[in-house]
């Protein structure tokens, strides 16, 4: 039984997205606006089994983020089916729910609640999260006094410590200073060792190689290749080099 399964998934966006105004709607009713939808994903199928770490590679705009959003349950596919089993923690954009006027501790609790933790569990994990973040005594200061590195560290700590079954990660390993990066890498390694699964989007081949067993290469919304990390990366990078030459 796979933890995540995509079956012939397609997702498209209307081109006029972003201007949800009355006149746009009126224009549409009268049929004066016609746009081909933009396909973010086209007929994508893959599965993630228990204990597996899958890297998603592809150039900008290939559909990687849309794929993660679908896996996280943020949106529904327009065609096909997405099945997910277990609790997902999505590290899509760290600190999305943070408010600058609340203290670090208040933001921590709010973020834990957003990730679905109960009050008891939050109290239980509180010290561990603060400890991991290395924020120390500043935890009771308002977030606006934090450096951006500190905010990222706090957000990452909440997500990694909230004990999800599946972790969805979008380019967030470059968080904080070298020491914290080392720590977060270690946390991910022990997460994997605990037999949990990951979907991992990164542009860094080094990180992909060290974190994942399998890779999925997508381009313009379609799957180009699905296989062992080494093979997929070789093909992906090979193509990138070819494109540079031509």
């Amino acid at each position: 039984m796979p933890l995540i399964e995509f079956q012939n998934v397609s997702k498209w966006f209307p081109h006029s997205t972003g201007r949800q105004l009355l006149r746009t709607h009126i224009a549409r009713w009268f049929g004066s606006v016609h746009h081909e939808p933009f396909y973010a994903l086209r007929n994508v199928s893959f599965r993630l089994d228990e204990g597996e770490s899958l890297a998603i590679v592809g150039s900008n705009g290939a559909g990687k983020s849309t794929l993660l959003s679908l896996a996280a349950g943020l949106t529904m596919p327009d065609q096909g089916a997405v099945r997910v089993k277990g609790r997902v923690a999505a590290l899509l954009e760290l600190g999305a729910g943070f408010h600058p006027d609340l203290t670090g501790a208040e933001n921590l609790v709010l973020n834990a609640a957003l990730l679905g933790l109960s009050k008891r569990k939050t109290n239980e994990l509180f010290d561990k999260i603060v400890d991991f973040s290395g924020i120390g005594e500043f935890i009771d200061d308002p977030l606006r006094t934090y450096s951006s590195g500190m905010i990222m560290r706090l957000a990452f700590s909440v997500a990694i410590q909230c004990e999800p079954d599946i972790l969805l990660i979008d380019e967030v390993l470059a968080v904080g200073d070298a020491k914290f990066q080392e720590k977060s890498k270690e946390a991910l390694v022990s997460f994997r060792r605990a037999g949990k699964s990951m979907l991992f989007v990164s542009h860094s081949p080094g990180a992909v190689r060290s974190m994942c067993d399998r890779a999925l290469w997508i381009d313009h919304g379609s799957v180009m290749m699905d296989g062992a990390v080494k093979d997929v990366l070789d093909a992906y990078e090979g193509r990138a080099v070819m494109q540079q030459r031509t």
Partner: protein
Amino acid sequence: MWNGDYLFLIRNLVEKDFKVRYRNMSLGVLWSLLNPLIMMALLTFIFTKIFAQPHERNFPLSVLCGLVPYNFFAVAWVTGTTSVLESSALIKRVPVPRQVFPIASVLSNCLHLLIQITLLLGIVLVYGRGVNTHWLWLPLIWGLEILFVMGLTLTFSAINVYVRDTRYVVESANTVLFWLVPIFYSWTLIPARFKGLYQVNPVAAVVLMMRNVLLEDRAPLGSTLIRLVFVSIVMFATGILIFRKLKDGFYTRL
């Protein structure tokens, strides 16, 4: 997908709203009290001294009975309408159930309602009007108003994602409502042929019933109460249905 702790999340969102609002004000909660008092004094001055009308003995109190439910209604409706849009960062990143945002928004306004109700009841006592058994109706009346606003907010917060002009429609509607709810005039002043207009207006019903209880020492009118119960439940159910229907489209439109 998201099977977390609903109540804990909503409580945290409400607390966040409250803390954020009051941490940036040196007078804090006092503003919640000052605003209706200023309006009450202003309306009393205008309608008893400048534009003098035949009025009741307890005019300031009568005005406050109108202002408190109206203010709550207007503010909760507008802030609730924009709540989904303002949480777009979260909606695009965290798979929380989307209805928590309008619900938390209304509930955080309920805290202000509570503060203002305390003020209102305090002033009722200052005016020398004692507590009576009819006060037991008050929680029900306010509960129905909250239910009605909740339904309205669910509906409009969802529509606002699709049509961003919605919030301005709501703001205009509130301006109209300020005049069409009997805030600074009493029910008896309304000509009989216009009374029907007020009978279908839930905010007017709430104001009338509060005056029944607090100023006239009697139970609210049964027919008005039943109508309010019906309208509130229908509005709430409609809100939930519309929100459920529209929420799947939020992601692509935010």
